């Protein structure tokens, strides 16, 4: 997938409009200086929009486009192209391609004339969509045709690339509309636009088969991601499989499952469950000891030992870990990694001490959140601490991964808390395991695709055999998300 930096021009400056609103302008200054600061390499594609032209219907920023094209950039430009002469004027300025919006939606005859003059390979059709409706004229009115009709016109004209912008998402940093792109015909070559704020968003887009490019503006201009890193990551979007992790909540040596951390139900012997999960394709196993007593915790340690002896996949254990000695005891019992929760809130240095003693890879921060507030003591006690701030701090102290549980969603089967996941995963570089709320196959996809999670965890769903690990993996693979099978 091509990552294409975007510059919107207004009155000679690089700017961004919030949701296409000409009264909400952020200016980034001289366009060439902006390009220098972004380290856009020679030969790179560059997407340029003349905003004034898109509103007035007459090319305005031709001098700037001429300067940009001279910098050995492959410029695709548009805004207000209403005629063959408009399109020709951008090509005459040195642009490689023109981006045609309103006429593509409203005037098929003009579109065909532009294609006849320039050749189909020099024309990109731009379709701006809000709530499934095509918008035109600088997003200020609805188009005369539906999305399907516009796409049919574009295909018939022989145009290969379609720039699809989800206007509701553009410029507001809430993530791309993956569903919009996935719903488009598979034979289109889509350039996605709008809502990209993280490298994970780009990786998720690159996994959608008809998305061949992505335009990024605000996230790049605001320094939220670097072009070099983005391009390196999307080069191999499927190299690293995402993980599906069953969780065993163990109390007094038995697997149980709580709904919203209360109403505990018994679900069986941990060793039997663990072995079944590995056979079904679990990538890792998490055991959370929710015993309330010391005797219960000793029983849990024995359960960990028995489970570790039955498994050939990584084992993460958490619950009731209060000290470096507890941590060591669990590693000795066969855990590969240990999750710390309440004790780390009480004494954050515990994270650093364990990372120093046992290595970063052994330390998992388990963070329970209600909304964005960190909760401790099995999700019962509020702390007043922001989950994003806490996870970022834990990363700095040496946590190797974050197990992020939404207390609101846990046991409800209503879906992971995507906003929480997104907020945390975009604030840290280490992996985030999504936990709490899995109830349907789509939930697992959304946690990875939109939430930026590197692993998805469920407990009751797998125990109750409503969905199997194999089904989750098959679904993720079908949706283009790489899994181990």
């Amino acid at each position, binding site marked *: 997938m091509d990552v294409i930096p975007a510059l919107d021009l207004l009155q000679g400056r690089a700017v961004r409009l919030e949701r296409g609103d000409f009264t909400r302008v952020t200016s980034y200054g001289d366009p060439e200086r902006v390009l220098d600061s972004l380290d856009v390499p020679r030969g790179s594609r560059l997407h340029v929009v003349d905003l004034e032209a898109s509103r007035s219907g007459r090319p305005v920023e031709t001098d700037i486009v001429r300067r940009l094209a001279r910098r050995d950039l492959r410029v695709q430009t548009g805004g207000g192209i209403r005629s063959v002469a408009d399109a020709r004027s951008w090509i005459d300025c040195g642009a490689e391609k023109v981006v045609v919006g309103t006429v593509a939606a409203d005037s098929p005859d003009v579109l065909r004339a532009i294609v006849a003059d320039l050749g189909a390979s020099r024309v990109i059709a731009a379709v701006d969509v809000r709530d499934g409706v095509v918008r035109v004229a600088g997003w200020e009115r609805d188009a005369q045709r539906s999305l399907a009709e516009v796409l049919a016109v574009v295909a018939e004209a022989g145009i290969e690339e379609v720039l699809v912008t989800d206007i509701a998402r553009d410029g507001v940093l809430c993530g791309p509309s993956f569903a919009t792109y996935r719903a488009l015909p598979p034979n289109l070559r889509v350039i996605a636009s709008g809502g990209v704020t993280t490298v994970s968003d780009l990786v998720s887009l690159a996994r959608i088969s008809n998305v061949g490019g992505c335009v990024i503006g605000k996230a790049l201009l605001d320094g939220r991601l670097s072009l070099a890193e983005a391009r*390196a990551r999307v080069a191999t979007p499927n190299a690293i499989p995402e993980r599906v992790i069953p969780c065993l909540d163990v109390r007094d040596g038995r697997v149980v499952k709580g709904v919203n951390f209360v109403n505990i139900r018994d679900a069986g012997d941990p060793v039997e469950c663990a072995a079944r999960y590995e056979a079904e394709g679990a990538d890792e196993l998490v055991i959370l000891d929710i015993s309330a007593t010391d005797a219960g915790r000793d029983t849990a340690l024995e359960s960990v030992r028995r489970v570790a002896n039955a498994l050939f996949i990584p084992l993460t254990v958490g619950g009731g870990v209060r000290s470096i000695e507890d941590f060591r005891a669990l590693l000795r019992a066969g855990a590969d990694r240990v999750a710390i929760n309440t004790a780390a809130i009480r004494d954050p240095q515990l994270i650093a001490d364990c990372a120093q003693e046992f*290595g970063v890879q052994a330390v998992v921060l388990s963070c329970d959140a209600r909304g964005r507030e960190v909760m401790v003591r099995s999700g019962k006690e509020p702390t007043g601490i922001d989950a994003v701030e806490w996870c970022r701090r834990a990363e700095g102290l040496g946590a190797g991964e974050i197990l992020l549980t939404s207390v609101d969603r846990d046991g409800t089967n209503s879906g992971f808390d995507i906003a929480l996941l997104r907020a945390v995963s975009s604030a840290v570089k280490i992996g985030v395991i999504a936990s709490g709320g899995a109830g349907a196959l789509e939930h697992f996809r959304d946690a990875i695709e939109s939430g930026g999670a590197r*692993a998805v965890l469920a407990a009751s769903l797998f125990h109750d055999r409503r969905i199997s690990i194999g089904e989750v993996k098959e679904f993720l693979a079908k949706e283009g998300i790489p899994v181990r099978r």
Partner: protein
Amino acid sequence: MEVTLIDSPVANVANIARALRAAGAGLRVTRDAAAIKAARKLVLPGVGSFAAAMSWLVENRIDSAIRDAVADGAALLGICVGHQLLFDVSHEMGTTPGLGLVRGEITKYGGPLPVPQIGWNRVTSRGPLVDGGVYYFVNSYAATSTPHEIARADYGGPFTAAVQNGRVFGVQFHPEKSSTAGLEVLRNFIAWT
């Protein structure tokens, strides 16, 4: 087939022992240099720091015991840091010479991804000791250029997932944590003639 597992204190010996037994090995776990020198099939595990693992080998004369065994035709499997120890040199926290049984150097991942790598990764292989597939890795350092590479993977850039030089075999991943695919690698080593 008897396998001699080197009982390094800088390793997760128990897990590897369990996996080797599950893969069908008769197992001797030892840190006795004479026993290691006389072994026909050796496994060198390792986790954590390269320098600590190497200095334990040197202090206990196990480095020369391993070299003697290999010179005498023994098969050797290095796992994770044990795999790295097979190389000429590592640049983890300074420069430390390794066993020199495989040509190349161990360097830190330089790509855009978070280090350490913790998780499953797809391996492409030139077989037959390692099948192409997905294996479990935990590492910050790896080889990127060696003439003895037999399998590779990508973590923000390509790296060596497995090496073979004569009877010396090494895997950067953890076969003991890689489920059935990992056990298959151990079975291949056990059956290797």
